[in-house]
């Protein structure tokens, strides 16, 4: 605590001492640029030079804030803002100086009075009577309180100025946001293509194979001679047609679960649990309405993670938890399996892209030896 105060005082002191340097520099640079206004080339050089000086001084101030006030050092800022910052901080520098001067004045007065009294003297002809000492103690306490408050307030002002200097400006923020959006948009397109490829594979390698097999059974039945043989082949063909229908239903379900529209997220997740080969415990705590895009993403996160757990984790139990707090939905799918899931794998990459498209984040925690948790955070409302 005392160390923090000492650092704040030292910071303010340094800030106050740098004021004359900065004022001198700004005035000199301004005069120099103004005086050269008739010679454009020389003026440009002067402006360039004054800018580098400006950046140097701003850099020093940034260092001071970082060292004495614990602010992160500002790295990127436009020159115009550096000029604004420096001009404003002259005020806070002077203010800090005034507060420190008050501190020094108070300390000096008390020290002097006590010193003279101890040596039997009477400063300004005042004897150390009880009520005089009491008056002095109260005045000192009030002044100390004000000074400490002042130090704190000026340090805060300096911090706010530093933060303003370091904050990305609007254009920079827009630029970052746009490149982020372009990246997630490209990812979404890639994810859609991946999914289509998967559906194509499901159709060709699953449903089409079954239908060809079915056709082949019927073709064999037509060529067969003995009635029993024909019967047997037709029975097989009938069974095969059932399986083809089941396969088709599976594929259609994987493309989009209609339950999501009819029964909402809880119903769709229950179906995932029912169809899973592992026991799945679902614990949803999502009060309020969910928009469809978020519900769909949550569904696919759960679906893919449960499928992965069944396929790769050798788990005995999967737990799905979803909670909503402070504008963020957290979905957590955990198993008690062997871990070692690769976040760069096809399915998880697809999920991460879907989540990023909604400005969310997907984390996969799966150390070798397990267990595995897939955690998604989605902004909502």
């Amino acid at each position, binding site marked *: 605590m005392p160390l923090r105060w000492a650092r704040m005082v030292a910071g303010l002191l340094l800030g106050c001492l740098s004021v004359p340097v900065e004022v001198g520099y700004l005035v000199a640079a301004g005069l120099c640029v103004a005086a050269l206004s008739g010679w454009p080339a020389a003026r440009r050089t002067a402006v360039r030079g004054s800018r580098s000086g400006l950046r140097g001084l701003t850099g020093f101030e940034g260092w001071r804030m970082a060292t004495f006030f614990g602010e992160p050092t500002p790295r990127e800022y436009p020159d115009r803002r550096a000029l604004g910052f420096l001009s404003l901080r002259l005020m806070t520098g002077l203010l800090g100086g005034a507060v420190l001067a008050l501190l020094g004045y108070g300390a000096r007065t008390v020290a002097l009075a006590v010193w003279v009294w101890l040596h039997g003297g009477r400063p300004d002809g005042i004897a150390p009577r009880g009520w005089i000492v009491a008056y002095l103690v109260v005045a000192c306490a009030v002044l100390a309180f004000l000074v400490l408050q002042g130090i704190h307030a000026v340090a805060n002002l300096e911090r706010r100025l530093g933060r303003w200097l370091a904050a990305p400006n609007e254009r920079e923020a827009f630029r970052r946001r746009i490149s982020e959006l372009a990246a997630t948009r490209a990812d979404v397109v890639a994810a859609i293509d991946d999914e289509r490829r998967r559906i194509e594979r499901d159709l*060709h*390698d699953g449903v089409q*194979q079954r239908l*060809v097999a079915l*056709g*082949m059974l*019927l*073709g*064999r039945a037509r060529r*067969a001679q003995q009635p029993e043989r024909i019967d047997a082949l037709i029975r097989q063909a009938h069974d095969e047609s059932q399986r083809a229908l089941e396969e088709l239903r599976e594929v259609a379900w994987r493309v989009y679960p209609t339950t999501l529209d009819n029964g909402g997220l809880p119903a769709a997740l229950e179906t995932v649990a029912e169809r899973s080969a592992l026991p799945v415990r679902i614990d949803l705590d999502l009060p309020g309405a969910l928009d469809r895009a978020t519900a769909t993403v949550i569904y696919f996160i759960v679906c893919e993670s449960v499928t992965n757990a069944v396929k790769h984790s050798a788990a005995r139990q999967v737990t799905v938890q979803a909670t909503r707090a402070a504008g963020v939905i957290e979905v957590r799918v955990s198993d008690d399996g062997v871990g070692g899931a690769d976040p760069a794998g096809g399915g998880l990459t697809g999920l991460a892209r879907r989540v990023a498209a909604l400005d969310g984040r997907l984390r996969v925690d799966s150390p070798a030896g397990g267990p595995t948790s897939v955690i998604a955070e989605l902004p909502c409302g």
Partner: protein
Amino acid sequence: MRVTLAEDSTLLREGLVRLLAEEGHEVVAAVADGSALLAAVDADRPDVAVIDVRMPPTHTDEGLRAALEIRRRWPSVGVLVLSQYVERRYATELLSSDPTGVGYLLKDRVAQVGEFLDAISRVGDGGAAFDPEVVRQLISRTSHHDPLNRLTAREREVLARMAQGHTNAGIAGQLHVSQSAVEKHVNAIFDKLDLTHTTGYSRRVLAVLRYIGS
């Protein structure tokens, strides 16, 4: 006929093994990927290899690459490639070197058991068998070629069936005309495609190649 099968779907592979056995063919090996197929062909030297285009590990065209390899290393082994959809590249690559003992069918054709067995026999005997759908697409792409525009509608029909690998007798049966009428059309086709001076079976294949424009 001695047949080697390469098909990764167990369901279809078993079905094909039964079908071929029922029809009196001998299935000497039934495998599920390209490298196993090459090993089996090397060991057994079958009359014909029936090959699914899409197999593990990449599920793209390892079947086709294995088929091309077989044609290069063991030219006496016929290859009949089965594909889930028509891909012009597959047909032209299969035909590019030596257009005998080669076939390309849509997988669906397996259900037309008669046609499928017919194709196996033709390919095993050193002939060709191309899916009507494959030929139709190739023709629709190449119909603007000059020499082909000289053909009459009937000659086109005959050429399309030649491209599928049918004999004159087979074509006559399908078009319900006499065999001599078919021969007349075939000669007219050779004439119009400037193939009069070549002889033998290869002339038919050349006609098809010209048709495809490869």
